[in-house]
């Protein structure tokens, strides 16, 4: 009886140990986890194709690379930085905000501000002339009615 107890204990111990080993090993990241990163990256060879949907063999390999990095405990940001360093900034979904690339963000902003400035100026002039009483405009419907009435008379 005692012998059996020992065997049971040893077996239990071995199983426990194995379970611990298994727990220490990273589980393989799922396709969804890989795609969550790949979606934010762009295929380095095809034009403007996100990596998660690119059907080429090369992109399949790149997705596997992401899986390996994730398994090795890399963070999303680290993987993105790795791809940018390895294959250029074009693998990122938008240019990184530094140096020359600031132009990508500042020019539209400047254009928008210019537009806002112009509109504000127009409204400012309007406000000043607001004191002059404006004639009420005729409603479109009313105008159409009058026009068609005139036409009927003309016929």
């Amino acid at each position: 009886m005692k012998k059996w107890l020992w065997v049971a204990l040893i077996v239990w111990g071995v199983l426990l140990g194995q379970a611990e080993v298994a727990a220490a090993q990273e589980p393989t990241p799922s396709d969804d986890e890989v795609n969550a990163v790949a979606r934010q990256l762009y295929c380095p060879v095809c034009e403007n194709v996100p990596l998660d949907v690119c059907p080429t063999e090369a992109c399949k390999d790149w997705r596997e690379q992401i899986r390996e990095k994730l398994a090795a405990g890399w963070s999303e940001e680290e993987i993105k930085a790795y791809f940018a360093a390895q294959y250029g900034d074009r693998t990122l979904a938008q240019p990184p905000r530094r140096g020359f690339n600031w132009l990508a963000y500042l020019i539209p902003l400047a254009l928008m501000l210019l537009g806002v400035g112009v509109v504000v100026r127009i409204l400012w002039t309007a406000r000043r002339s607001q004191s002059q009483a404006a004639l009420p405009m005729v409603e479109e419907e009313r105008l159409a009615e009058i026009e068609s009435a005139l036409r009927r008379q003309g016929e």
Partner: protein
Amino acid sequence: MLPEVGYGALLVAFLVAVYGILSSLMAVWRNSATWLRSALSAMRLTWPLITVSLACLLILLVRGDFQVSYVYNTTSLSMPLYLKLTALWGGQAGSLLFWGWLMAGFASLAALRNWERDRELLPWVIVVTLVTLAFFVGMVLFSADSNPFVRFWQNRSGQPLAPAMFRSADMLPLVPWDGRGLSPLLRHPGMIIHPPMLYLGFVSFVIPYAFAMAALITGRNDARWIRITRRWTLVAWLFLSIGLVLGMRWAYDVLGWGGYWGWDPVEVAALNPWLSGTAFLHSVMIQEKRGLFKRWNVFLITMTYGLVIYGTFLTRSGVFSSVHAFAQSDLGPAFFVFIAVMAIASLGLIFYRWEALRSEGQLTALFSRETVFLLNNLVFMSILAVCFWGINYPLLSELVTGQKVTMGPPFYESTVGPLLALLLLLMGIAPLTAWGRSTWKTLGRSVWRPALLAFLLVVALLLGGVRQPGALLGFGLAALVGFVTVYEYGRAAWMRHRTQGESALLALWQLAGRNRRRYGGYLIHLGVVLMSLGVIGIEFFQSETQGLLRPGESLEVSGYRLTYQSLAQFDAPDGRNVTRAVVGVEKNGRFLGEVYPRRDYYYESQQPMTIPGLRSTMEDDVYVILVSWQPITEDGATFKVYHNPLVNWLWVGALVFLLGSLVAIWPESGNVVKSA
């Protein structure tokens, strides 16, 4: 024989266009009606001539005359007839010829209108239109890349020579036994009508542009050019809209990435003229009603047309793949010069008439229909600023730093999203404001009911479990626009019903007939509301999952259960190998049906195509993609599944949009149709 005839007819068309320009200028110089009549005849003649050329190319395509390089590159023996015909716009050279043909069609149409009252505009309309036409036809004629009639030759010892248009003494025809076939990407019903619609939209903007320029040159700076071209502009805009929507549908059905709009530079290049065109359609109303913003309107139509040409240049010269393709293709520099000349001439004219284009009055109030339209223009221009820069910055970056960059969805969506919300808000307010002067009190009186309804809807959604603030805001604004529009329409119909005793339905119908532009516009707004539901659905509620399945195993996404049943591989008669999976769709334990995601491999072009299996309802789409599979063993296949809520509303909304545009374009009832 046919290639020579096609090329010859095109050459004659080119010469006729040049003649038309010169005789039109003569007509102005000599003030001669004879020269003008001659120029008009020239403009009418271009279309039949290019039609002959186009017919030659079509016959070559259908006959499968593979000695012609264009036929070889875009068709093959196994292709069905309709694809052989659509191969006309399946490649660069054919597209340009097709483009020229459409433009000539519009030019001829414009030439046929009644010019009695606008005689002084005519010569300049002819000049502007024919210069553009001559440029496009000239490119097809004189650029080796863009001539669709170039043929393959060999020398007497059987060695292939460079493709050439004409045969010299020591050349023998070289006829490949089969062609390479149309790119599989283009073998979709959506692709068959998408390019013609887009091109129609593009080229028809030449007419309002030509009139605007003619008005500037002749100094007729009133709103006449706008009134004449109102319907042309709407037609152009409608075609452009249809083209864009069809492109979205095509992307959804064929590209296999679960969405319809990926902010690809080619898409954005086509969107840009639509943005400025839409701004134009709104702001011309201010000029017609109040005589304001004349400079801005001329500038807007110039910009729209410039964006059309620039977009064509960007997509046709290959600069998107590499800036350096610009110099390699002989199209690039020619296009560039044309755009520069056009821009300088147009801006020069606007500047020349700067003082004459002064507004007739002033804005009379801070809050009025005019100011709301002004803000509308500001928002459209802001979106355009982002979109224009988004396709141009990568070119600049590559040119200056040598570094290629991608402008993906995050770049656009962070700015365009809020701007679209603002646009919805303006769309909700605008119909309730008055021209000239509006007060917050009257706005409040008419807006509170729709606003309350929209608010209640948002609360209901919140209680129903919708938590994303962006989605709630989007739904709320869309609901506001929808309710305001229906309320406005309903109120006007009710008035007629009461005062004129018409039945409610007749009143609705009569209203649309009375002021087609306004009520067509309302319908368009309703279409936009429905479309925005689809956009919100996919932007905020799309979910996806991917996994390797053995037959019998399932994936789950958003309450759906997708079970991989079987896989089959077979050759289709049109030269492709099809790998097709059968996937069962279940929801809450109830079997709903099967979808068939597949991968088509085209032998001729060696290109794979990923065609999703789609189960589509008004509530949501289940979109299944076959990612990869193990060919021999039963190891299983990888599937990617998207759950796209509400996306069908996008297409429904597009139909309403189309209907609204047609109502707006239709001639006013009771009005003798004046030719214009």
